């Protein structure tokens, strides 16, 4: 290398790399180094969730446009069982808490509790999904199918998309559980659980929005 550049390189002190002491920190150009200190994976998940906001935004807007336009058949508002949905919403909200507990356990290195809370979260999510399936089935029984009217199409599409998101979350949680059992989820990798947790909390927050806007506001 030329002398000019090496002098220049010594004069320019890298802003990063001087952060923490201790063991080897990744240097610029190495795997794992980032400008912001936030890992690529976590930032990527945040950007993805930003994108998801618009997806649900579009679906919720569609529902709001159509909730009063049904020309035939029962509308979703005629059939909502608010106490039932409140309970299943509560179940989903509690799953956010167990998600946090799973992450905290792994950050402490408590693998046993990590697994317990991961499975609990997945089970709570599955309970919510079962409630949704039951709700869908009872709506169909009461005469509001997917193609009955505009409001029913919009309702089933919106809540169905949300249900698919929860189901994908359950699959991710169970994958984490299996990884943990097989020793592939060491304490240093707790960020994986954190990132799945971000997704899980997001899906929960979307449900709070859906429950308020779709179910509670007439």
């Amino acid at each position, binding site marked *: *290398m*030329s002398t*000019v*550049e090496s002098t*220049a*390189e010594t004069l*320019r002190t890298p*802003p990063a*790399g001087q952060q923490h002491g201790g*063991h*080897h920190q*990744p240097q*610029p*150009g*190495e*795997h*794992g*180094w*980032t*400008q*912001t200190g*936030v890992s*690529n994976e976590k*930032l*990527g998940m945040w*950007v993805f969730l*930003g*994108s*998801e*906001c*618009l*997806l649900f935004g*579009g679906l919720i807007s*569609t529902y709001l*446009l*159509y909730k009063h*336009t*049904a*020309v*035939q058949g029962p509308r979703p508002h005629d059939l909502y069982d608010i106490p039932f949905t409140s309970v299943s919403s509560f179940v989903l909200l509690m799953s956010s808490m167990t998600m946090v507990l799973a992450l905290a356990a792994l950050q402490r*290195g*408590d*693998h046993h*509790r990590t697994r317990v809370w991961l499975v609990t979260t997945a089970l709570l999510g599955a309970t919510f999904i079962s409630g949704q399936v039951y709700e869908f089935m009872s709506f169909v029984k009461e005469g509001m199918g*997917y*193609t009955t*009217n*505009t409001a*029913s*199409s*919009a309702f089933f*599409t919106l809540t169905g998309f949300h249900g698919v998101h929860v189901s994908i979350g359950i699959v991710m949680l169970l*994958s984490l559980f299996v990884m943990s*059992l*097989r*020793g*592939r989820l*060491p*304490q*240093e990798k707790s960020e994986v659980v954190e990132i799945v947790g971000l997704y899980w909390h997001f899906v929960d927050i979307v449900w709070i929005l859906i429950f308020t806007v779709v179910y509670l506001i007439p």
Partner: protein
Amino acid sequence: MAIIEAPEQTGPLALPGGPSVPAVPAMGVFARPGQTKGWRSWVTSVDHKRVGVMYGTAAIFFFIIGGIEALLIRLQLAHPNGTVLNAAQYNQVFTMHGITMIFLVVMPLGAALMNYLMPLQIGARDVAFPRLNAFSFWCFLFGGLFLNTSWFLGGAPDGGWFAYAPNTNPVFSPSHGMDFYALGLIITGIASSVGAINLIVTVINLRAPGMTLFKMPVFTWMGFVTQLLIVFAMPVITVALFLLLFDRIFGANFFEVRAGADPLLWQHLFWIFGHPEVYILILPAFGVVSEIIPVFSRKPIFGYPFMVFSGIAIGFMGWGVWAHHMFASGVGPFSVAAFSVSTMFIAVPTGVKILNWVATMYGGKLRFTVAMKFAVGLVAMFTIGGLSGVTHAVSPSDLQQTDTYYIVAHFHYVIFGGALLGFFGGMYFWWPKVFGYLLSERLGNWHFWLILIGMNLTFGPMHILGLEGQPRRTYTYKPGYGYDVWNLIETIGAFVIALSILVFLYNIVKSRAVAKRDNLAVGPDPWDARGIEWMIPSPAPSHNYNPVPVITHLDDFWHRKYGEDERGRPVRIAETAEVVQDGDATGVHLPSPSYWPIVIAAGLPVVAYGIIYNIGLALVGAFIVLVGVYGLGLEPSTDPDAGHGPAEHHDETPPPAPAEPDKAEEVAPA
């Protein structure tokens, strides 16, 4: 592999199979691909530069298809009562021409340049998620091929690229064409969104030390804004496409007017995506021009902060103008007035950019290379297209122009005269960096002048025809309306454009042969350029930079070469050869190639075919995708067995346990 001391046990709760196995054993079904040459090395590559080249190649392939469709349209319209295509065929051809050119040509050309250049311009080793980058490309390619197979499966989409529902309901569009449209665009939308997340994270996280946001090249800035637009615009059209698909396949009522549906829903969802989309198309080209003009004017870009902020402003304001596509749809006087005003406003940041390019050239030492000619061509042609765009903002005049060729003239001047000319300029400019040889300037001049004359012959008369009232999307016209002569001129112009593209393709082949024959090697910096991507050898080595540059200035490379005298004129302070890197890769650790991206991407069209034809096939496709996702997720992004420099010992995680020799052998490539 060194045996290091076993770490302390993690306590009584450590289960068997706990942290005492190797940290990340590879879980590939396939052996990790190791080729560096041949088709396999391309299929499995995760190198952002190779992905960029593949994007460009695929885009040019689709460009030829879309171009043939354009020529068919022009042949049909060359004379009144044309008989080249019938009405149904014409609908398919103009629809596929639009879809192809927008989603499969201009967006991927931008993606090619952004993939290749953004990591280089910020001094990064690769993008943040190299395998997802490869996935984006394959997903786009298979989505594009999927769309085009509709030609052979009962008819292509025929509802226009905007696919206005309910005109695209099964009643009015009974073939499977619009199903292909919805599913194909969902697939390419996944590709764009994943790619956008990737590049956004790359720009935020992987800038070289000292490369603050406001030392980033304008191209990277415009790419960054583009990716943000993609990430927020794509989900909106995804919603619209799903609603359309559910209407068509499951009989939902989203666009069923008899069931009380509002046909404006589609238009709103589509154009909330669609207007940001036009900036997704043009902003990368603006970035390209902002790189070319300073180099060939030997001046820094005029008003860098204004360039950046006008790009950001376009990014924000692009969300507030969508209803100007709907002035004729009865959205009401208040909406029309509001969107008229916002549309006029968005011309301001664009005008700022044009002014700054001109001011960059003013007083500069201009060199009119082919790249520079294309850049100036963009400035001129985009100005024409921008001005006709402002006439659409005036809603009373827009009501006269709607659905006429005047609109067609406008968007071809901005997309062809803007985006495409810019991308061609970028190709001539960065070609030596990518492929290691210069494109011939002589043939390039032919290319440029033919394309410039051709496009003005083709799209210029459309202004006149539009004002005379020739409707767009109509497969023929009758003689005696005064349309005949201009239409014939347009057809001639279209063939001039086709000729220019042939010259371009010939240029690629010829210049490569000449460079090979005469053994012409191009140095790292053939243009005496400004950005740090010119600091590394041409073609760019797979590891990009070694060492990673430390940035102190905007146009850092220029400042390593040139200082300033007391009158502010550039003075050489170092020879180029002294400041460039030699491409040495000692101790560099690169992401390993992978089969999984192409596996996941291959599963998606199978799902799509299954949704149209047979739900069992969809399950097979979903299974492929699922296997691929798990394969990708469980394999380490860097192969622990891959050879790398001897000084390397860091990996994604510090090894918590000894790598047992027998375990290590399990993951050795077969």
